[in-house]
């Protein structure tokens, strides 16, 4: 039970971040390398604005980030760059600037923020920190909400259309530029939300974004581009793997094994004979006409 709750909590964090980066990737075809640093920014808002209640701080963080995100997209990512790599590097530079700005403002020592809901709750006989549960549930609710919007509303359909084929979508009367702005802002806001919501559970420091970037990227690597559902599923798998390894092993060993398992899986998936094996097994499972 403990483990399941831990997975829920971790999935909330990774899921928000991965969903955000997947939305941005879908619409802009760019892996947002500043995603972890956006989460860091959100966490710092929650840490510093202590005069208002925690819930308001989270909303404040979300409200504050809209305009800067819009500006980043409009000013830095709008230029017709020669290749996707250059755009990716721009996001890397943005992340670097955010990190360095945070270091100048708050120094590099870690800070903590008190959880708004202290104490523990009893869940099927297991005591569990109340705020972990609350934050996990909120995150999962937000993820579910975003997925619902993406798959059940006209706006979501438009977004998926732009993700799949921007030229065609433009010909059908969507403005892909507006869609790109919206997707970047929403994806960035999900990261800020993740940072602010989970700030009581994390050590808040300028370089915390890196730690978040890696699991998020792994999840993105295993999802299909543009398919948000698969991104969330991949985030769940990554969260489960991370939590399980950590319950069995020491931190460093767990981290090392985590990387090795993921990189190994990626390597295996990329081997052509494994891919062939997979496609064979699919063909055996669904026997079609064979010549």
């Amino acid at each position, binding site marked *: 039970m403990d483990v399941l709750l831990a997975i829920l909590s971790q999935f909330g964090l990774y899921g928000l971040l991965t969903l955000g980066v997947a939305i941005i990737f879908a619409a802009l075809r760019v892996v947002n390398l500043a995603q972890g640093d956006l989460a860091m920014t959100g966490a710092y808002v929650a840490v510093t604005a202590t005069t208002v209640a925690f819930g308001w701080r989270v909303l404040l963080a979300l409200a504050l980030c809209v305009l800067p995100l819009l500006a980043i997209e409009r000013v830095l990512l709008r230029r017709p760059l020669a290749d996707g790599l*250059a755009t990716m590097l721009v996001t890397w530079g943005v992340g670097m*600037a955010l990190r*360095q700005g945070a270091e100048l403002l708050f120094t590099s020592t870690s800070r903590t923020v008190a959880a708004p809901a202290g104490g523990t709750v009893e869940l099927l006989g297991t005591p569990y920190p109340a705020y972990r549960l609350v934050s996990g549930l909120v995150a999962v609710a937000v993820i579910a909400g975003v997925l619902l919007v993406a798959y059940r509303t006209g706006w979501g359909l438009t977004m998926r259309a732009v993700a799949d084929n921007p030229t065609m979508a433009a010909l059908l009367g969507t403005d892909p530029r507006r869609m790109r702005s919206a997707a970047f802002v929403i994806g960035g806001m999900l990261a800020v939300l993740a940072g602010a919501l989970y700030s009581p559970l994390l050590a808040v420091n300028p370089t915390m974004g890196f730690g978040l970037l890696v699991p998020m990227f*792994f999840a*993105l690597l295993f999802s299909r581009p543009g398919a948000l559902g698969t991104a969330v599923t991949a985030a769940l798998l990554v969260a489960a793997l991370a939590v399980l390894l950590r319950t069995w092993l020491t931190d*460093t060993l767990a981290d090392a094994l985590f990387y090795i398992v993921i990189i190994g899986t990626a390597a295996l998936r990329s081997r052509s004979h494994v891919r062939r094996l997979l496609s064979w097994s699919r063909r055996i499972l669904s026997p079609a006409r064979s010549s």
Partner: protein
Amino acid sequence: MSRRAAAATALLLLALAAAPFGLSAFAVATLTLGLCYALFTYGLDLAWGRAGLLSVGHAAFFGCGAYAVALSEEHDVPLALALVVALAAATGLALIVVRIGLASGIPDAPLILLTLGVSLLLQKAATTLTPLTNGTNGLTVSTSDVVTTYYRTLAAVVVVVGLCTWLIVRSRFGARLTAAARNPERAAQSGIDTVRVRSAAFAASGAVSAVAGALYAPVAGLVSPSVFGLGLSTSVLVWLALGGRESTLGALLGAVALTTGQQLLGTAWQGWYVLGLAALFVLLVQVVPGGLAGLVRTWLSGGAPKVTLPPSASRGGGSGAPPAFQGAEAPPVSRGGRPATPPEAGRDAALSLRGIAKSFGPVRVLDGVDLDLRPGRCVCLIGPNGAGKSTLLAIVAGQLAPDAGTLRIFGRDASGVPVHRRVRMGVGRMFQIPSVVTELSPADNIRLARMEAPARAELPEEYRDLVTDDAAAAGALPLADRRRLELAMVLAGAPRLVLLDEPAAGMGRQDALRLARELRQITVRTGCAMLVVEHDMEIVRELADDVVVLHGGRIIAHGAMDEIVADTAVREAYLGVG
């Protein structure tokens, strides 16, 4: 240009050698540190610049070298052994990372992820394996006096950069790399094993970075987990972005200048300096992607292409080789040079397909295609849209693997043979959208095609002008000229089986007919076989010995043009009437 570069290099070396005589100890120490970072930047350039493979965690390799020196001193391991282990580790890690990255079609995102992951992992290991590495406090390394360290560092940098320039940048390997990093499709179609070439460059980049780390350890006097840190990885990206990719001097000077700036500003302003660098980086990537070296190059070159192949590329591949082409009657010669086994059924064919099938998901694009193509013949492949023509061509060229069936090229089973090896078997291919290395001049493109050719082929008269055309980059050519260049590249590769995908698309009527006649002449003169996908019936009539009609993934008719026109099945496929 090269003489000027040589003079500049000599002057720079002289200045560097004399530097300790005119500078304070602090300045010399700063310059030494700058040299270490310069070598690191040069190492990154081999990956990001030359091979076109971005790494955002290059400090992983740098740290391997630095920790090797520190650990050898701490635990009394011979330095040479530690260095060899570090070099092997850095090269091995780089190879694993780049192989996984290149296995996906677009290697950027996986590579970013993997390099990031590897450097974070190593940093974590260095932090937590306290008995071995002394944790976050790091290990001290004994230093010798400033001037000795300076000269040792300088000598090592010069040797490593010289070796890499000779082996990687200026060699034929460098020419292959230039093409593979820019247009992998065309490079593979010119007989270059793009994955191997790019992985080798990335591995070399890892090794050079490790050497830089090993030089850094005694200069800094302290090796802590931050040598694996992303701060350093990011800095090196900025240095290279400022100096300019694919420029040895640019990389070295960018690193030295920015490191010196950082050292001079002192600790109080460090934070702002780094923030400024971040802003500079965003600006550079957007406005001056070529960095300072790119600006200088544009200024010096005028309109000429900024990228050129190293001179070693023009030493042709098949000089002194046997005649370029076999006649139509001559038996194919196997790779060993001995005559191939006597012809059996279908063995004397340039291309022989049996039961080729291919599905994309539930869509069965090819459903058992049998086809034989004899040397000296030109077969045109026609059929309605979606008939599977381009898929068939891609399977013959090797871009796609068939689900079933056998494919023989000059009698040899070629089913599992990768694209670049098929090129060496004599396959040449033109794409539907012309694919040339747009950054290189037409002459360099031809040189590239000749480099890996199994034999030297003289181009037909009307293509000779391209061989000497060094004036502008091929990307500046209009579409029709780019198509002409691509055809010239294919012919320069001395092909015996030529695959063309709509060679006349987008051409005017007269040009298209002239092209058809030229192609016809080429088959007659060289005895090569040709498989052409074409929609325009007039061109088909001009070009084809045989016409093959593909419909619904099967061949429904095969014969001379007049027979095909009269065929009821074909009329039904095209017009829907019997």
